[in-house]
């Protein structure tokens, strides 16, 4: 006979459930006795009275559930599994999460001692405190929360660096660790390309393009958007590059970021140059074309970065469908637009996707406005009307303050789409649609009526309104990218095959005359 004693911390199962489970547990083959009770002092005495004595029981608190199983030696394993299964099923059925939930980090650490990564998603005012607890307990940290001060971020990353740990974030929305997507992420093939991203949707786009080109991702590490600022100094980016350099499953490293501070870019490139593996760098909007290091390749966009990465990882170039710009399509769209239709309006969920399209437009036009423009002359707010070429990152704090992120709720974007369609000077409306973990379960479906209405408005005034869409996702995601694309095509939307192409196509569609 073998006795198994287990204390389930903070288990609040109602009386009926406890009774039912106790009855079922006692009916499991091999179980001679199963006792379930809250760990109050009086109930501990009940156990003592029937001969159950154990330090774990002594240490348990009234909020804990005591589980005692006696079973024959050869069936105890199966008995424990069966009882656990009953408890797990009950947890799921009662509306509790199937996974165990802990109210404090300390509680989780005491139960699951081998945890090595903690995801923090609490009010930003408390995020640094919780992250510090995790770091002091020797855990890596991913901070999904925003509104963490620069001072706190620097202190946390310095502490992590000293302890040999990694802080991803704050405001880190994407990671793939050992094949598991965290927060917003896409289902991609596992492989030998490691990604370090200081931009969430930029990292998603890279992972998706790598998957599309036949490559796979070993790890995707986020750093948070401020990591490459002068204040933070790229601490997490540098530590991540070194971690991937040491990772035997990673053969190629790819970096994506919005333009870093110059001195930080130098530091990052120096670390990349010291790596033993090829490093592909995409600093969006940066003018750098040479890294100065033999193993470090600078690229101009997310798609070129993905192409360089898969080639370095050993994919045969002849197998790649590079989706070169479709010149006949560009001519066709230009022919449909009247001279008055000169401008692009970009309505984006993904900040990096907005950046990439905006930078493509800036290569050709000066009059490009955005809520994420660095040049104050061309910066507009969320409530300002669009002007000339306008690219809006609708996931930016300007738009999401107190409102849902457009990757979750499209309402704001649908309203804006209707407004933009009223402007007879608009030739192209560019939009991204992001599927995958954490995103809206049908981002295209909810937008189709507004697209139809927008096109109808333009048609009523005798214009063709070109709506250009890009669906970020893979064939493994839910919903399937192919289905989302089919819906867009049925609604008369032109499909771009990548974020990079989205910006280029939009730019070219509205080019006139000598442009």
């Amino acid at each position, binding site marked *: 006979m073998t006795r198994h004693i287990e204390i389930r911390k*903070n288990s*609040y*199962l*109602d*009386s*009926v459930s*406890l*009774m*039912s489970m*106790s*009855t079922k547990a*006692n009916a499991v083959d091999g179980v001679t*006795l*199963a*006792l*379930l*009770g*809250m760990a*109050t*002092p*009086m*109930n501990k*005495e*009940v*156990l*003592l*009275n*029937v001969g159950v004595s154990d330090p774990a029981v002594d240490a348990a*608190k*009234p*909020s804990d559930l005591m589980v005692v199983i006696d079973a024959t030696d050869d069936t105890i394993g199966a008995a424990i599994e069966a009882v656990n299964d009953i408890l797990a099923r009950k947890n799921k059925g*009662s*509306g*509790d*999460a199937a996974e165990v*939930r*802990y*109210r404090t980090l300390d509680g989780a650490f005491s139960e699951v001692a081998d945890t090595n990564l903690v995801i923090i*998603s*609490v*009010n930003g*005012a408390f995020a640094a405190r919780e992250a510090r607890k995790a770091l002091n307990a020797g855990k890596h940290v991913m901070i*999904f929360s*925003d509104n963490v001060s620069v001072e706190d971020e620097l202190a946390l990353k310095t502490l992590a660096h000293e302890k040999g740990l990694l802080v991803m974030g704050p*405001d880190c*929305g994407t990671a793939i660790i050992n094949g598991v997507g965290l*927060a917003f992420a896409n289902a991609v093939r596992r492989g030998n390309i490691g990604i370090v991203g200081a931009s*969430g949707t930029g990292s998603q786009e890279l992972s998706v393009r790598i998957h599309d080109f036949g490559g796979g991702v070993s790890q995707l590490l986020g750093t948070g958007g401020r990591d490459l600022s002068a204040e933070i100094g790229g601490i997490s980016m540098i530590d991540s590059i070194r971690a991937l350099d040491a990772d035997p499953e990673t053969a190629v490293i790819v970096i994506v970021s919005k333009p870093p501070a110059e001195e930080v870019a130098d530091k990052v490139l120096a670390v990349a140059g010291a790596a033993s593996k090829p490093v592909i760098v995409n600093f969006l909007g940066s003018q750098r074309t040479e890294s100065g290091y033999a193993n470090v390749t600078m690229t101009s966009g997310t798609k070129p970065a993905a192409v360089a990465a898969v080639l370095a990882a050993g994919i045969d170039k002849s197998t790649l469908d590079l989706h070169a710009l479709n010149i006949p399509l560009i001519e066709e769209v230009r022919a449909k637009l009247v001279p008055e239709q000169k401008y692009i309006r970009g309505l984006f969920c993904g900040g990096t996707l907005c950046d990439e399209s905006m930078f493509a437009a800036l290569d050709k036009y000066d009059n490009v406005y955005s809520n994420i423009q660095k040049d104050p002359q061309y910066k507009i707010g969320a409530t300002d009307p669009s002007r000339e070429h306008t690219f809006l990152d609708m*996931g930016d*704090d300007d738009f*999401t*303050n*107190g*409102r*849902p*992120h457009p990757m*979750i*709720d499209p*309402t704001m974007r649908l309203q804006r789409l209707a407004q933009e369609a009223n402007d007879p000077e608009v030739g192209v409306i560019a939009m991204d649609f992001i599927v995958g973990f954490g995103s809206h379960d049908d981002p295209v479906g909810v937008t189709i009526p507004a697209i139809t209405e927008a096109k109808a408005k333009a048609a009523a005034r005798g214009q063709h309104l070109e709506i250009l869409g890009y669906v970020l996702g893979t064939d493994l995601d839910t919903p399937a990218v192919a289905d989302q694309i089919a819906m867009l095509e049925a609604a008369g939307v032109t499909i771009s095959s990548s974020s990079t192409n989205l910006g280029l196509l939009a730019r070219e569609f509205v080019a006139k005359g000598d442009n």
Partner: protein
Amino acid sequence: MTPVAPIATLRAATWEDALEETLSSATHDGFGGDLIVHSVHDHVVNVQCFGGLIALAHDRLDDAPWTIRIPASGWPTLRAQAGDRVEVEGVPGDGHALVVHSVAGSVRIMLNAADRWTPVVDARTPSTTALRAARTALDAFTSPAAITPFGAASAQALDAGVERLRAAAMALLHGAATAESVTALIAEPIAQPVTEAARRLLGLGEGLTPSGDDILTGLAFLAAHPGFGLTAILEPVTAAVHDGDDSTTLLSLVTLRAALTGRARRRLHDLVTALIVGDNPRIVTMATETAAIGHTSGCDILTGIRLALDLAETARTRAPIPTATPQIAPPQGEFS
């Protein structure tokens, strides 16, 4: 990145007005951001607040202390999980709202003044005939026999605990008949055995509210109705509960604290009113509804009420007993 989802707003069906003070404190003290979801059940979400619990309950359940009832139509939107954050908001016009932030989205629950539920302690005195009739009617609602090994293991201790409490309370009530005042009485050693006996029931038995706690709840709730003449036992039982933070579950403590102030689920208020007026059919109806609480909780509460009725009859005899402190020997086999 701001991972916010839309906030759905719904209006509570009813809410207990004792919450007013708690929620006002939360908003005035700037404490509103620190409430968390404590536990989630099929029809109840418990929110931890100031060392107590606020229950968000499906409106199929009746009113209860610290409880906000949610209309059935709004219940599916409340997909909370333990650990979720809950905010208290002040609403113009001196009202309040709770906002539950869960992964599935946020839900704002408006507490309108018109929807308050105020539990009332029926202070009328039942006749002796009514007491006896009530006692007889409740005999049909005994706790079911234990069906689990843990239930069986704790049953004997429960029976012994109830008898210990009965004896201690009877001695106290006899003493009360001769004491100059209740204040003087509770300072006497004669009250201490009641506290000790109550402590031996706290946290004893199966369930999230262990059976011993449910029995004490029934006893305390009836004792809080002055017409039954049991107020003398409130203080020593309160003393046991006051020191009971490490003795039982938080849910039990919250329920017991309310019972000691004459607050319980609406069906228990209705039952006590029926007991007071001697409305036998109504007693049976409300006792049946009470027995339906949990697996054994309802029957255990009724056990406490039966004990209280026995004691009420005893209190009316006002016959002092000779020994000051009863010495109750534990039954054979009971643990120490």
